[in-house]
């Protein structure tokens, strides 16, 4: 059955997987990050197909900033024009291959026996509102704890960053 949704899914899934494969195979760090952009954006597209539009928007909102920062780190913290080389000894590659096979088999078995009971859910109706209600009523304590953890991380990052240039003026960003 070839519906528009199916075509869109195939396109997005192909781009997502191609982005992932390119991320592993490209040799320059900025190329990898650009491949990552395509993966994240097409995964957001798949979220839209699943009617999780809030999640899709947030995914792009968070990752567009995050990817830009990764790119800057890639530019600033690696050698200019450095290329990663494939190194590894024979038996290590065989072990890796076996590991990949085992993982593939596990996932295949897991998916093959998966049986979604086709209950009618109303999760896609007004899902932004539903997420908000769930976060602020049922899961309020975990949600607040997460924000505290984030705050601690932020403070920790500031302390770590300030330690280096003790007494040096300026140079804030």
């Amino acid at each position, binding site marked *: 059955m070839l*519906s*528009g949704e199916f*075509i869109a899914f195939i396109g997005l899934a192909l781009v997502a997987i191609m982005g992932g494969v390119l991320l592993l195979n490209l040799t*320059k760090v*900025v*190329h990898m990050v*650009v491949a990552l*952009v395509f993966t994240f*954006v097409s995964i957001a597209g798949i979220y839209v197909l699943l009617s999780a*539009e*809030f999640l899709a*928007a*947030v995914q*792009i*909102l968070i990752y*567009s*900033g995050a*990817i*830009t*920062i990764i*790119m*800057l780190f890639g*530019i600033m913290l690696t050698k200019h024009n450095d290329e990663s080389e494939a190194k590894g000894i024979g038996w290590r590659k065989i072990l890796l291959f076996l590991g990949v096979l085992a993982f593939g088999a596990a996932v295949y078995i897991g998916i093959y026996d998966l049986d979604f009971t086709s209950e009618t859910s109303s999760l896609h109706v*007004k899902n*932004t509102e539903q997420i908000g209600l769930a976060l602020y009523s049922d899961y309020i304590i975990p949600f607040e704890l997460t924000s505290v953890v984030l705050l601690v991380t932020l403070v920790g990052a500031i302390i770590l960053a300030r330690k280096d240039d003790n007494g040096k003026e*300026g140079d*804030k*960003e």
Partner: protein
Amino acid sequence: MIQDLLYSSPGWANFGIFFLLATVFLFVILGFVTYAILAERKVMGFMQLRHGPNQVGGRWGLLQTVADVLKLLLKEDTIPKLADRPLFILAPVIAFAPAFMVVATIPFTDKLQFADIGVGLLYYIAISGLSTVGVVTASWASNNKYSLLGGMRAAAQMISYEIPLVMSVLGVILLSGSLNLNDIVEAQKDGWFIILQPIAFIVFLIAAVAELNRAPFDLPEAESELVAGFHVEYSGFRWAFFMLSEYVYFFAMSSLITVLFLGGWLPLPFLGFIPGAVWFALKFSLVVFILIWFRVTFPRVRADQLMEFGWKVLLPVALANIFLTALLKELLTIF
């Protein structure tokens, strides 16, 4: 109309209609960009006691931009020898595609809208952040110190000003109770949000100018410091793509400000006989004029002032505005 099309069964006819609509829309935006550039040069000219373009296309220079674009298309397309070739070619596309994508969600009147997305406002802010990836990619691929500096500034500026932008809009969302742009316009029936949320409007306007990379926040392409910033090495139609994406964002951001704070297509009291499209166009032109006015009258801020202003002034003010709005909303519901 779009809603019916979306729910009908897919086929080549649907594809054709969507393709045609998108093409027509693209040409409308290109037309806007052409005359926005002319208007900008004219207004700048008048404010600086000059004439502005007045040779090509009659007294008002109506064909000046068309001639400029033709010249750009005929120019030699240069790619530096040491540039990162694939990224150099890809970067203008990454910068332009999101600019066109965001325009789809903006409601021009209650009927004329391409995509009525439930999280329209969030969609706009999220997608517009993607352009920075294109800018940083371009700056790195050019293999030029000036362009790299411009790209770094663009990234820092985007991260710093996206936060006050989102935070200032939260006040509007609290009052309207929706992220949908249509609902936000409908919620302004009793009073535009520029009156109910003046602090949010000012913060949003400043952050919007910074997101648009226009003067006084045009540090990524500051011509007196960085030659031309991130697009130093670009020429011809690739450079035109960067300029185009900048002006399409100009269009989109002006529309968004109109929708969020000036009541979109809603008329002033007693003037309801004028159609909504005209109202939208009038408010939109006013915002465009104000943004051009900003560019002519303000000097460029320094990089460190930019960061301090974003984090130490705009963000606390936006947070205080959220607090105040929530408090007022609760008090109003109690009494």
